[in-house]
């Protein structure tokens, strides 16, 4: 049974300068206990998906497609039911715990709030549970009386994780949880997330631009570019044997120590991701792609078979239809 089922999700922001299609048809699903890593550069739409799952976007944003959380259609939930599902069905660990915590409220109270809002415990019980949650993420329970400014970046991130677990959700969405931290702390927090996910059997959607992080944490990997998924499959396989040129470039941008490929110079990818309002014709990646051919300018690729349990949106993969048939 899938915890999260997304089909052809499209999210469009409405701004004064016109419509901005941030997500243009994304489909994936996450099973119980499974970790799906979602990677891509800034602006590819991955954080937008995170917000869409709990309908956190402003009223002007258009969300279309199918979004099912534990079988329930999120997009048609009434406000009361939506509020009930938030945090109990799925919770989010935000990035930049710098400003994600209310500066004038004790962190214990902020964790308790999640519990009490859903009527899961009395105030006293909630306080105890908050302390227990802090312990679970490696902080002494007495720190629940501290204010956010009295904690370090890494500690604040742990509080965010503790808060996300407060209502025992089935799905945890981690939106760039380690981006704002320095490397040593990053490693600790990742280790914590991994062990919690394993011990509690959580389903997780792990969003980041750092592909190397995802390989260790995820079971499956989905790579996003310009609002669409361009490759997906088993995490290890996608990273070490990428089928889509973009995935390869992304993987090559995060060298591992000891990997002889990168000994002489790190490989980078020139250019910038496209403006969502000015997406190139055909394959959106073709202006930056080293393997682009004429057809790439006109053919819009879909996720075709690219191997066992692998799909990629590129004309070069095995499962892509022959060019003649597509171009006619």
């Amino acid at each position, binding site marked *: 049974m899938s915890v999260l089922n997304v089909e052809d999700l499209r999210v469009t922001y409405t701004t004064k300068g016109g419509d901005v299609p941030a997500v243009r048809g994304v489909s994936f699903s996450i099973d119980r206990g499974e970790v799906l890593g979602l990677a891509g550069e800034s602006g590819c739409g991955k954080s937008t998906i995170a917000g869409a799952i709990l309908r956190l976007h*402003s*009223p*002007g944003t258009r969300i279309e497609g199918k979004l099912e959380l534990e079988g329930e259609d999120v997009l048609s939930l009434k406000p009361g039911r939506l509020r009930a599902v938030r945090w109990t069905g799925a919770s989010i660990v935000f990035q930049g715990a710098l400003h994600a915590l209310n500066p004038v409220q004790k962190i214990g109270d902020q964790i308790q709030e999640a519990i009490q809002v859903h009527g899961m415990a009395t105030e006293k019980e909630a306080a105890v549970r908050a302390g227990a949650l802090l312990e679970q993420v490696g902080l002494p329970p007495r720190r629940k009386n501290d204010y956010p400014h009295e904690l370090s970046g890494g500690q604040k991130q742990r509080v965010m994780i503790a808060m996300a677990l407060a209502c025992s959700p089935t799905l945890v969405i981690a939106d760039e949880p380690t981006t704002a931290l320095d490397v040593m702390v990053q490693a600790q927090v990742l280790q914590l997330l991994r062990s919690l996910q394993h011990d509690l059997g959580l389903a997780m959607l792990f969003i980041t631009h750092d592909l190397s992080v995802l390989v260790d944490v995820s079971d499956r990997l989905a790579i996003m570019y310009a609002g669409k998924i361009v490759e997906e499959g088993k995490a290890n396989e996608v990273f*070490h*044997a*990428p*089928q889509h*040129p973009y995935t*390869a*470039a992304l*993987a*090559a941008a995060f060298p591992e120590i000891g*990997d*002889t*490929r990168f000994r002489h110079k790190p*490989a*980078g*990818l*020139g250019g910038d991701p496209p403006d969502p309002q000015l997406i190139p014709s055909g394959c959106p990646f073709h202006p*930056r*792609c*080293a*393997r682009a051919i004429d057809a790439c300018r006109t053919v819009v690729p879909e996720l075709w078979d690219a191997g066992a349990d692998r799909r990629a949106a590129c004309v070069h993969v095995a499962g892509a239809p022959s060019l003649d048939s597509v171009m006619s």
Partner: protein
Amino acid sequence: MKTEPAITAPEIQAPVLPPNKLTPRQLRWARRRRTLGRFWQQFRQSKMGMIGLAILIFYAGVAIFSIFASKGALDPTITTNGPRLAGPSLHYPLGTQIDGISVLSLTIEGARISLFVGLSAALISMLLGTLIGMWAGYKSSVHDAILMRITDVFLVLPWLALAIVLAAMFGQNFWIIIIIIGLTSWAGTARLVRAQVLSVKERTYIERSRALGASDAHVVIKHITPNLMPIIFANTILTIAIAILSESQLSFLGLGDPNAKSWGTLIEEAFNHGALTLHAWWWLMAPSISIVLVVLGFTMVGFAMDEIVNPRIRER
């Protein structure tokens, strides 16, 4: 065993620029023109800003007109044989005051005075505030501490109490009023400028510039000031609004220059001649509405500018 990557990343080409026919100075000015153009495009979209600008252009026109029209039919110093304290009529669109002088001509004359005093005082305030703010922000902590203490004093001071004393001591000359207002209102600008300088100072290109041996003056002039210009400009517009209000308060208390009657002085005369009890509302309202409109104009333009120069990420 690691496999070779499926592809290697494309080489990044160095961009080939067209041969440059423009000098650095011309380039700089071209860039400034472009920035101004962009700013104007954004400003045009602000309804509030455009309305404010319209009001200001109108009153600027009135003020300029008054420079040429002070002789002749609209000369307010000529007492006429007209009706005294008459309400608005065809001949006197804004009525007359106690000496029979047309309120309209007095108001037009007042536009020039009020606007001039407001602009000059704001200029002094802006210069003082910017200098002190920059000095405090850029220099060491001792300078900063002393200057900020002094700034706090002026920030906290009820400016009118000080202004009254200064005016009582140094007279009611037109220029003295300008100086007094300038001297009592610079503190807000100083605080703002200092905060900006502190944040810009930390940026890497400043560090780089100094590593290359740039002098303080060079860093300040070439790097820091350009960053501050937009914010100082927006702040100055709002300062002008406050200066005009301040001048009207001083004049209302009788401290205006009797030879250069600003709107505030007009209101003071009206009030002291009992316009209220005599129901001569036109004498009071013409200068009053003018003050409100002009201050509104500057405030609206200032707010619109502030939104462009200080964009904040806001919800919805």
